[in-house]
């Protein structure tokens, strides 16, 4: 096994789950394995171009492939809908056990008030553990643009969550948290 193969083997073993976990929230679960395989196919072809910090590069490829092959269908079904499709009783139990200050459905409704790019920014950092510079690489924008997007997304989410605490705020509507651009 040469050095390139050894590196590819390490990447494949180490990051397969991460890539799949990212992909399955962007395309139908039935096609997520196929797409993950395609990401690593691209990775092997471009092994010499992959930077030291490989995960953001891999997720960036995954993002592009998902957009290419599932663009229209993917956009029609947003992140929150995909989350709902993958949510099980265990998540609700775990939520209850964690003693959150807000109901899970309200939190999902709050997430729904974010734009697609804001939701991506918020989840890339928390779910995939990426630093803003790394997440910016995945999202295909500059670090500064990403930080602004992240900040805006977090603020919008926090407001939406707080709005749901207000008396009578049973259903969150996006206009409740419209902020001035």
């Amino acid at each position, binding site marked *: 096994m040469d050095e390139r193969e050894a590196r590819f083997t390490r990447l494949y073993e180490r990051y397969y789950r991460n890539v799949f976990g990212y992909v399955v929230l962007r395309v139908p679960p039935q096609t997520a394995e196929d797409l993950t395989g395609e990401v690593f196919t691209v990775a092997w072809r471009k092994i010499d171009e992959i930077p030291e910090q490989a995960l953001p590069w891999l997720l960036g490829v995954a993002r592009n492939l998902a957009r290419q092959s599932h663009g229209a269908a993917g956009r029609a079904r947003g992140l929150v809908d995909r989350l709902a499709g993958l949510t099980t009783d*265990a998540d609700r139990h775990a939520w209850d056990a964690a003693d959150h200050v807000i109901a899970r459905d309200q939190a999902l409704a709050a997430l729904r008030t974010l734009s697609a790019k804001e939701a991506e920014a918020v989840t890339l950092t928390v779910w995939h553990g990426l630093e803003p510079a790394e997440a910016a690489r995945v999202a295909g924008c500059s670090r500064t643009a990403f930080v602004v997007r992240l900040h805006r997304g977090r603020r919008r989410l926090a407001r939406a969550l707080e709005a749901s605490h207000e008396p009578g705020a049973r259903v969150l509507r996006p206009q409740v948290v419209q902020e001035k651009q």
Partner: protein
Amino acid sequence: MKNDELDRVIDGLKPALVAELADAAYARRPELAQIQARASTVQRRRPVRLLALAAGATAVAAALAVNALPSNPRQNGTIDTRTFLLSSAETAAKQPATHGTCWYSRTRMWQDLMPFKAGPGLPTPAGKRRTFQAQTASSAENWVCTRSGGTGMRFRMHGPLDITATFPTKKDEAAWKAAGSPPLDINGGTTASKPATITYDKPTGKEYKYKASHLVNPSIGSHEIEWTTIATLPATKSGLEGYLRKLWQQDRKGGANGYVAPADFGRYVFVSAWDLFMAPTTPGTRAALYRILADSPSVHVTGQIKDRLGRTGMAVTAQGVDGVRLVVDPATARFLAFEQLSSDPDPQTGRGPQVGDYYAFERQGWVNKIGAVPTP
């Protein structure tokens, strides 16, 4: 809201199933050599509907099942739906109750490979375009084991086995040969894949906060049925119907995952039935399920057919559950095959709907050791 609290909320929204599905996908990931081989002849595949036999995926399938079909009489020629289903209930009830620590199943899956045609929204493949149509198939063995002392579960997959590739016309086969007879995709591998055995454990404990059984728990509507409780499901018609109606009423109001159950109870039961037939339900529960289906006006037996393994069975469908057909063995009341048409026309050919998923259940049963195969 404080930053760390906000992070906790966002973190809590990530479904546990993502990690479960990732573990399962990792366990059956293609061999590196396959990935490398694909890179040299990369070719974009038509998205394949590989319905993982997992909770969640079933919920997805259930959510797809809507839209009215033309009304079918329950009396189809000489076949009476009610008579057949009640007879199947009698047959199921007579099957011996078995037990074990590992549930074994061997399932065969098919994949249709279509020639590439450019179309809107379809990326141009980087490598050679597929010029032929083919159908590939392979089988896989699965063991689902509970570990003694409630210490979690152990899973094993062995496959792919008995790989085949067929071509609809001689012209397609000639085009494949002209392309250099490349290995064909099949269920995550290729027709050149060698069988592999993958075993992995899911612990239960504080360090692992999610249920180990997520991947294999059957679903009824939006409700997940814990693996270890399957054998305790009601075994009488009235008992099971009461249980299912309660779940249905909850799902009518809006169940988990945004799922809303159909207004027709029979349709709800039908959609849940295939999961329950695939799971290690007791003979009594299976018999009760057939009796409930027999009383459901929307469920129809549409005639005798052969499944893709050539076994004779009766096709069972439900009005309003678009494109789903179950095949039941009249002699044993066993569930032979599941067919689901894709909901959309094929994006490449415009023809459709096509068969999206086809599973044939070759063998199922309890054993007491991982790797063991039940006697037929």
